[in-house]
């Protein structure tokens, strides 16, 4: 492989890694919005919280693998608590989107201040486990094993998610609820319980992404800023509630990011938003949107 090709390939895998992390965050966000009509401003905060949990679990147990299991589960439990005892309560007042937005913004602020209070404002390093350290040689190209691991992990989660959505009754219920949750509940299905499940799974996936990102990006209070904004772009451009849209746009944004930095570094930070503005002027519902409110 020529050095130039090698550089392209490396950059593409970089983009794929970020795209996969982005997908883990954005898929939960889009399903939660699609089904419940809730734009969860705290979603990326769960990503960050899980990264802190990861740092803490590694500090206590010295095991990244333990953190990979415990941190997302802990985050998911908090997510379930938020849905069951806060969101559901606020929704009873029929305030529309404003109630959900204010509540989730509040939760985002609490998490942001909370992590600073508990863990301080400095960056914390999470060490890559020895088995994932180092480089692997693929077709004459040296590449960090850890990033390939993230791609594999996210691909496995994506497959599991696709299986649940398209091959199980629960998935059928979720897909139906994205278009009309009230009607689903009129068929005898306990929607509040399904909402809680989806919210929990969504936060767990954001949590997995947080753990995966921790060793690459270090853990600090602004960790969720970029991925949070990008995840919203994914949901808007992919179409609210569309998992397929989330996958496609996440991967595209990952590459846009990677190659943007490579070729037009000064414009790279705004490329994502230019892209969103462009798409929305032609397709206001996003690429694969089904919901129309």
């Amino acid at each position, binding site marked *: 492989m020529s050095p130039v090709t090698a550089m392209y390939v490396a950059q593409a895998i970089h983009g794929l890694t970020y795209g996969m992390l982005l997908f883990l965050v954005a898929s939960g966000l889009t399903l939660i919005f699609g089904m419940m009509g809730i734009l969860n401003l705290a979603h990326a905060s769960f990503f960050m919280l899980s990264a802190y949990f990861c740092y803490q679990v590694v500090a206590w147990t010295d095991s990244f693998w333990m953190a990979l299991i415990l941190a997302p589960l802990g985050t998911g439990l908090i997510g379930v608590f938020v849905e069951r005892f806060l969101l559901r309560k606020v929704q009873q007042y029929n305030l529309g989107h404003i109630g959900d937005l204010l509540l989730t913004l509040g939760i985002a602020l609490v998490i942001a201040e909370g992590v600073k209070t508990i863990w301080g404002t400095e960056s914390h390093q999470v060490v890559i486990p020895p088995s994932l350290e180092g480089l692997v040689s693929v077709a004459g190209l040296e590449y960090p094993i850890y990033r390939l691991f993230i791609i594999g992990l996210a691909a496995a989660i994506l497959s599991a998610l696709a299986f649940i959505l398209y091959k199980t*009754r629960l998935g*059928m*219920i979720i*897909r*139906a609820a*994205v*278009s*009309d949750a*009230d*009607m*689903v*509940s*009129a*068929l*005898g*299905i*306990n*929607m*509040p319980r399904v909402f809680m499940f989806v919210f929990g799974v969504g936060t767990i996936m954001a949590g997995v992404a947080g753990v995966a990102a921790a060793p690459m990006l270090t853990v600090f209070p602004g960790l969720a800023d970029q991925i949070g904004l990008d995840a919203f772009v994914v949901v808007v451009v992919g179409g609210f509630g569309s998992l397929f849209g989330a996958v496609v746009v996440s991967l595209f944004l990952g590459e846009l990011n990677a190659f943007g930095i490579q070729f037009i570094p000064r414009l790279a930070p705004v490329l994502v938003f230019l892209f969103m503005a462009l798409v929305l002027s032609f397709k206001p519902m996003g690429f694969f949107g*089904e919901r129309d409110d």
Partner: protein
Amino acid sequence: MFLEIKDLNTYYGPSHVLQGISLNVEQEEIVALLGRNGMGKSTTLKSVMGMVKPKSGKVIFQGANIFGKPPHKVSMAGIGYVPEERRIFPNLTVEDNLKIGVKGGVVDESNPKAWTLEKIYEVFPSLKKRRDNKGANLSGGEQQMLAIGRALMGAPSLLLVDEPTEGLAPIIVDAVRDVLEEINKRGVSILLVEHNLEVAMSLAHRVYLMGKAHIGFVGTVQELDDNPQARAQYLEV
């Protein structure tokens, strides 16, 4: 009594849209709820179903209090809902639209009220041909049949059916009418909101006429036929 609605009051914000509705349906009966637009017919069905939260009153179904219960509990009690806008899941196939209606996901063969896919396709042959099509690709008539079929898959003993013939071609209107009659013959009671007077009168055993937010007339189809004054007051435009 099979279904008893007593003194039901519902509000949309400050407006009092159901003011003390009382109505009942007996086992294996078809009851039509008629009246002009905006009188509260659909809201009555929604209030029973839990799609809209009623403020006060009594709703007793087969001895169980279902007043103010969420839709999934009302459905589990044995009431099926066929909404006005049909509300087919557009991204699911016809067959999945039917399957999602099965409570717990498995048809309970021991339940005499249970409907299998075969039974549904027997009553709705047009759905069988379209079983692999997405809900979004169906015609209005097919969507209506699917909405009825989906509700039946939940093995209800009572169906709440809201404007089933609205916007359909005359030949399809007849087909929907016949299907409702057939379902009733198989033991399902029906509370029907319907604009098409001919359809309603040919199906119903008893009729309730609604004026603004209240019930103005109760009687058999024959009694309504003999009462031009009630018809003029509550039905004619």
